[in-house]
């Protein structure tokens, strides 16, 4: 009897060790990737790098200003579209959970979340690029559609967690429904909604596939949103697969910048959820 217990206990300890090992081993590839990108990229980044466009092929120097400005513009435009639509749709879903529209709309949100980004890119190509040509706007729309599910779900879940007594109190004071939502409910759920927004931005800022056939890319610094525009992930893709070492260097620098953006956004989200959570 004792021997059996001993064996079983040993098994349990071995299992625990295996689990711990496997769980923490996963961090190694991440650390390797992060360190490598930082090492290769940080050397590239200087003021010249951030303010100049790439040099012609084969030449040294240049920078990623076109991609930097492009990413900011494209992501900015996506946010302007996706944030209001996403929040309002999220409000609808949390306020009307039983309706048919809520059911099918919610289903579509789940579907949209699973659509591969390349598929989204080619669909927007047919919707917008074919009739109007390549443009930053078309890229933004593809990205905005990808942002929507994240913003909608986080808004919906944040609002569902709020106590119904909040709405009741406002309604009893004669506050009309739209003001109850916009001036009481949404402000109380601000932390959750904001983190959803920031997470969705962090997600799309690194997306390449939807931009391949919409915003394309360009060697020129441009703020014309009706024309092609470069972006950080697209530049990385193009230059990573090019034969020129100088372009590889630019891609490392761009990767570093992109990585920093994503990291900062994720950290900011964590801080927001911790600090701004309104005590209910």
């Amino acid at each position, binding site marked *: 009897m004792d021997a059996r217990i001993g064996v079983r206990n040993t098994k349990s300890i071995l299992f625990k060790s295996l689990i711990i090992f496997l769980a923490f081993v996963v*961090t190694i590839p991440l650390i390797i990737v992060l360190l490598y990108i930082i090492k290769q990229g940080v050397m590239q980044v200087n003021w010249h790098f951030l303010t100049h466009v790439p040099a012609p092929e084969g030449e040294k120097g240049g920078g990623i200003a076109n991609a930097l400005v492009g990413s900011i513009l494209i992501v900015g435009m996506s946010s302007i579209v996706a944030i209001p639509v996403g929040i309002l*749709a999220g409000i609808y879903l949390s306020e009307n959970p039983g309706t048919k529209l809520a059911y099918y709309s919610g289903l579509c949100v789940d*579907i949209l979340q699973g659509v591969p980004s390349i*598929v989204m890119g080619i669909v927007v190509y047919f919707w917008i690029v074919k009739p109007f040509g390549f443009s930053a706007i078309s890229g933004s729309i593809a990205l905005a559609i990808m942002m929507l599910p994240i913003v909608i779900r986080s808004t919906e879940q944040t609002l569902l967690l709020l106590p119904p007594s909040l709405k009741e109190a406002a309604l009893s004071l004669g506050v009309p429904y739209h003001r109850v939502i916009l001036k009481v409910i949404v402000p109380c759920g601000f932390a959750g909604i904001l983190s959803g927004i920031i997470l969705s931005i962090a997600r799309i800022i690194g997306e390449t596939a939807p931009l391949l056939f919409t915003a394309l890319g360009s060697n020129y610094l441009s703020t014309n949103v009706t024309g092609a525009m470069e972006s950080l992930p697209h530049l990385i893709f193009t230059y990573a697969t090019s034969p020129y070492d100088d372009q590889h260097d630019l891609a490392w620098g761009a990767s570093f910048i992109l990585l920093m953006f994503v990291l900062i956004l994720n950290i900011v989200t964590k801080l927001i959820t911790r600090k701004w959570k309104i005590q209910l």
Partner: protein
Amino acid sequence: MKNKRLDLSYSQMKWETVFRRILIVMSAIILVLVVGVFITLIVESWPSIKSLGIGYLWGKVWDPVNNIYGAYPFLLGTLLTSFTALIISIPFSYSIAIYLGEYNPKGWLSDLLKNTIELIAAVPSIIYGFWALFVLVPVVRSLETKIGVAPYGVGVFTASLVLAVMIIPYAAALGTSLIRMVPSPLKEGAYALGATRFEVIRSVILPYNRSGLFAGILLSLGRALGETMAVTVMIGNTSAIANSFKEIFFGPGNTMASVIANEFAEADHTLYLSALIELGLVLFFVTVIINLIGKRIITRYTNN
């Protein structure tokens, strides 16, 4: 004052209706978007569906120059990379889930691991692809020379490795919440009967979560199937099927996503383009169905 309030109450009633309508419109937009995506995919792949028929799916030759299209190489590439990635990642995902869900749910170490895993999901896929191209490919190349296969470096195997790391967080996050939700009385009953930790995990926690853990696998799979950029950079872009499994696995190939990414811009005639879109349609269907099944299982779970 009273009149002011009376007037205000009437104008506010109007705004209420406007607001409610706006909410409905916004929700409807989502529906319209999804229906639009579906319709566009079908319309644009119609020429190919019509002329190539169902045989397209198992056609083994992809030769745009001669207008011959067969999707089999890409189905093969997609399935190989995704399932290999899945098989590699699942033990890690669920180890993380068991660790964070059962052994160490709270505390600084657990938070650290949780944040690290979330970081893995946050890194853009093109960065993984770029890094892998310069760091992983040479390593795989020397591995391939050692085992006697053609040393491409790029290929299905390398892509699977990168993909495996990228999809770990999905099943891990889901698994962690599911394992944490196992009711204490169930576990305590087992401990009271003298079970060891391992036995409780094996006989109580994991069976309790069987369908949920399966859903986690589905979600990771859905993510793997749809991944484009890292795979495109890693996979070697060859549409021909090699002869032996070893050659296929360690050699270059293509997935549905990567061939679209690579050849969409070059597709100059209708049939070529629509054959590519048809791949997109298949990809759309498969990923959507897998994701929906996964999510349904989870909602049924969390409601029980």
